[in-house]
């Protein structure tokens, strides 16, 4: 504990807070005097005897894929225990929303001694991490001065609020700042995400929509489920997704997990695990198509009615002579039939297994092919998305209960919300692909349509001011850290950086100004059920913001006064609670959930969540399947496009083929680079973190410490033993971390879970185990997305000096 009771903290409020933080540290020492089973040791004994309140609220999910319900025990304003959903029933239509280790361990983040407490101003060099404490008034004056100056000297399009999901209720994180800047003339926009850049762009080329998913309860109608690179048990792709798979298995579905790692989901949800070489999924998919086509297991009626570009009989106008999907699979043009034997050499999956999975998938109908997102955060991520969708199409598993169309698979029938808080319109029309923000720093004014710029031919500025909120994207989560920190370190490029967060993250260390935000437990918010859920959570303020922390909304409201737009910003004086009320009463109740209780009833009932039970799961594309003429897709042909004319017209067939193809990645085991860097490295989403959030949470990190996971054989070759420190490097950087030697990852592949906090030594080697010192800033061809799992590396036992 480094907190001292100095003068500034001597008022009663802060004394209590001091006790609160100290108590947490003390609480974790079990008191010898407390007898187990009698008085529970811990904070209850130390912090007063006030009445215990139990508040139901949404988990501060930080944009993991889940949205769970917490039952938070509070005594004297201090969170003493965190339980989870215990609503009776727990039916499949409305199951309990049970929290994982991240939610259950939240107290150790909430009462972490390193929480930011005061505004800080940089004193050393950028990135050095040296700061002095300043007052809020000084901090807001600096913000006001810098934003005004950059607008005056460059214009609004030189302002940028980067991607970030570290605080993700509808009132927190970046949204209030976006609203404020929009009132001041706007800022450079971005589109797409780091999570699913490729599937977000590729899916509509096939289906004309992103809403290709059935409601998840429909998995219980499936006979066969392929979890392709999908690990819902760990990354929580929707609360209860893993549980629904368990229920589907109980009803008799056979499940297969295809993944380079024996993931938690492979262990707990699958009847069979098939390891596959990273980046080669589209090869196996193509070979499955070869089996399905040559063995006449296709759904010909569905193909003829609903697909376009399958074979030469259904090519779009003007492309009659081009290579169809079937041509590619059979190899009629390129001379390479995509047989299981062909795929075996690429994927390391035995040909017999490829053929068997193809037959099972095509005949055990209805079947689900669920595509995880990891395999599309790769060099040719767009191809794997389209190749998977093609398999769903040729087997006719689309638009029927128990089937699944693949692609992004947002659920049909009810658009997800993402943002409800009204941010207003951005007067700056230019937006860039989210992954290209460092390009916009270096050469924004030279960027154009080839870089994916939208809304205008090109930005009229380079980025000059960054206001980074609840985000570790500046350093930690973007590719190629050693490149990024050079860019950020040059004060002539980005002239001002403000970071607003709970902790001094690796990104915050590159700030000129650090603004201390409170956690989601310390302000109001509203959360929705993320990609799938039929849920709305009210997250009330449970504890007071400690020290001088403020909510993201409050910070922006205070800043709006300096700009003289407080009235507009707060819409006549709304505070956080009033906005939560507005969102529930005037948005949700007037759109998707008219039967939802009013805000005040929700608050009174302490329910924490409103759920609309899923009795009859919606099936995506069902109308289209029945009558494609009457309900055409929003594609040029109105059909499922196995051949895409818009992609053909781009005339970049090597990287953006008109039919989905397996393309050898730019860094792979098959190229010259493998001589120097023979191992593929992937960075899966780790149970102990949500991206980089919780990396400093001892309770989660001690349960799942940061490791380099390496196969026994690869380790033995390098004389590496379990628990050794290893050095992992390539041309872009190096890291040191402890090695976990395991049989649960395929030979030739290592896994460095993404999100560890960058912690460089003197020579720039990262000792935090952050995979992004190894990743590349190169973007994918079509989506301009992040290919962060496509990297080759070498590993050795670490020796100091």
């Amino acid at each position, binding site marked *: 504990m480094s907190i001292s009771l100095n003068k500034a903290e001597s008022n009663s409020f802060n004394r209590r807070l001091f006790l609160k933080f100290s108590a947490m540290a003390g609480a974790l020492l079990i008191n010898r005097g407390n007898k187990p089973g009698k008085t529970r040791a811990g904070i209850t004994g130390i912090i007063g005897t006030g009445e215990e309140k139990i508040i139901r609220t949404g988990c501060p999910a930080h944009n993991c894929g889940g949205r769970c319900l917490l039952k938070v025990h509070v005594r004297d304003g201090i969170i003493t225990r965190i339980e989870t959903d215990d609503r009776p029933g727990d039916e499949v239509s409305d199951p309990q929303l049970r929290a*994982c280790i991240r939610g259950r361990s939240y107290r150790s983040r909430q009462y972490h001694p390193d929480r930011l407490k005061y505004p800080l101003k940089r004193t050393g060099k950028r990135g050095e991490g040296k700061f002095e404490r300043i007052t809020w008034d000084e901090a807001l004056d600096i913000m006001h001065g810098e934003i005004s100056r950059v607008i005056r000297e460059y214009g609004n399009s030189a302002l940028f609020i980067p991607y970030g999901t570290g605080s993700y209720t509808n009132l927190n994180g970046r949204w209030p700042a976006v609203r404020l800047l929009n009132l001041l003339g706007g800022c450079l926009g971005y589109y797409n995400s780091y999570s699913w850049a490729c599937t977000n762009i590729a899916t509509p080329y096939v289906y004309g929509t992103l809403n290709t998913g059935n409601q998840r309860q429909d998995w219980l109608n499936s006979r066969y489920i392929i979890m392709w690179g999908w690990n819902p048990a760990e990354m929580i792709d929707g609360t209860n997704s893993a549980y629904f798979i368990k229920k589907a298995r109980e009803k008799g579905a056979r499940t297969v997990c295809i993944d380079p790692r024996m993931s938690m989901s492979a262990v707990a949800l699958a009847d069979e695990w098939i390891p596959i070489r990273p980046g080669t999924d589209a090869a196996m998919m193509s070979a499955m198509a070869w089996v399905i086509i040559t063995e006449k297991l296709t759904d010909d009626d569905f193909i003829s009615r609903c697909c376009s570009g399958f074979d030469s009989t259904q090519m779009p106008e003007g492309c009659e002579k081009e290579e169809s999907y079937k041509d590619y699979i059979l190899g009629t043009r390129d001379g390479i039939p995509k047989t299981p034997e062909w795929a075996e050499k690429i994927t390391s999956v035995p040909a017999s297994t490829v053929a068997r999975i193809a037959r099972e998938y095509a005949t055990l109908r209805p079947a689900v092919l669920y595509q995880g997102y990891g395999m599309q955060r790769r060099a040719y991520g767009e191809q794997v998305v389209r190749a998977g969708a093609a398999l769903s199409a040729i087997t006719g598993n689309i638009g029927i209960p128990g089937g699944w169309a693949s692609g992004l698979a947002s659920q049909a029938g009810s658009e997800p919300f993402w943002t409800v808080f009204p941010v207003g319109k951005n007067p700056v029309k230019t937006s860039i692909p989210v992954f290209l923000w460092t390009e916009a720093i270096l050469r924004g004014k030279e960027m154009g349509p080839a870089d994916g710029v939208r809304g205008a031919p090109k930005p009229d500025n380079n980025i000059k001011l960054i206001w980074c909120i609840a985000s570790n994207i500046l350093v930690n989560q973007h590719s190629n850290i050693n490149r990024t920190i050079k860019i950020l370190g040059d004060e002539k490029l980005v002239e001002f950086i403000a970071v607003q967060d709970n902790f001094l993250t690796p990104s915050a260390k590159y700030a000129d100004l650090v603004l201390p935000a409170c956690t989601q437990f310390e302000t109001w918010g509203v959360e929705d059920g993320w990609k799938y859920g039929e849920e709305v959570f009210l997250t009330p303020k449970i504890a007071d913001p400690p020290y001088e922390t403020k909510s993201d909304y409050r910070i922006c409201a205070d800043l709006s006064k300096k700009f003289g737009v407080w009235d507009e910003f707060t819409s006549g004086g709304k505070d956080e609670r009033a906005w939560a009320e507005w969102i529930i009463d005037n948005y949700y109740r007037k759109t998707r959930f008219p039967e939802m209780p009013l805000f005040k009833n929700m608050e009174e009932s302490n329910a924490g969540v409103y759920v609309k039970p899923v009795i009859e799961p919606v099936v995506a594309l069902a109308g289209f399947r029945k009558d494609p003429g009457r309900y055409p897709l929003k594609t040029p042909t109105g059909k499922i496009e196995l051949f895409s004319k818009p992609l053909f017209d781009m005339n970049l067939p090597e990287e953006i083929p008109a039919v989905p193809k397996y393309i050898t990645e730019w860094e792979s085991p098959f190229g010259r680079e493998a001589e120097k860097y023979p191992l593929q490295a992937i960075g899966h989403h780790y149970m102990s973190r949500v991206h980089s959030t919780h990396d400093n949470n001892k309770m989660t990190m001690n349960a799942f410490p940061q490791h380099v996971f390496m196969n026994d054989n690869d380790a033995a070759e390098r004389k590496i033993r379990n628990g050794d420190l290893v050095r992992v490097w390539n041309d872009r950087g190096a890291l040191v971390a402890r090695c976990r030697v395991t049989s649960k990852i395929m030979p030739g592949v290592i896994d460095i879970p993404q999100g560890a906090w960058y912690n460089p030594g003197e020579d720039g080697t990262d000792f935090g185990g952050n995979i992004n010192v190894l990743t590349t800033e190169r973007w994918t061809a079509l989506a301009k997305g992040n290919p962060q799992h496509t990297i080759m590396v070498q590993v050795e036992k670490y020796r100091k000096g």
Partner: protein
Amino acid sequence: MPQYAFYIDTSACSGCKACQAACHDKNNTRSEIKWRRVYEIEGGGWEQQNGAFISVPFSYFISMSCNNCGSPVCVKACPTTAMHIDKNGITVVDPQLCIGCRYCEWACPYNAPQYDSIIKTMTKCDLCEDYLLAGKKPACADACPMRALDFGTFEELSRKYGEEKRLLPLPEPGLFDPGFIIKPHRDAGRATNEKVKVAAKKEI
């Protein structure tokens, strides 16, 4: 007195450690003191033919707290009677009597007694006795996102789940009469023919 027991569905356990986290939170135990812990079991190996992997390893998880044994060896091993069965039939440690000799830790095949090196005393799971008295299940049992844990008397649970207690590498149950029922993982059978080991020992 009926024996309390856990049902542990290793066919559905993903090793996510939500149970362990719920236990830490409820009992205010430091992260290294694991009244409930999750064992990661690995077995089998890789076999390659022409570059393709024709045989792959297997793995499962076993979540375990105190098994409230019918014949608790920890009680027998204790030289001071600190480890004892209380009036509710639950094996607990009396910290006033415990001298921190750690014999119980040695004796218990399930690592249930957990030594606290700061206060130099054994600590252990008491099945959330206060919750039981209030009519609730232990914190861990209601935590599992996969619904792979359950709690009740052995009799109640065995009616629902059978009486299986064998899963490698757990010891033969006969000596201890542990209060658990196990649903074996799909690959439990492989464990009888191929070597299995407890992985990630440092995380336990």
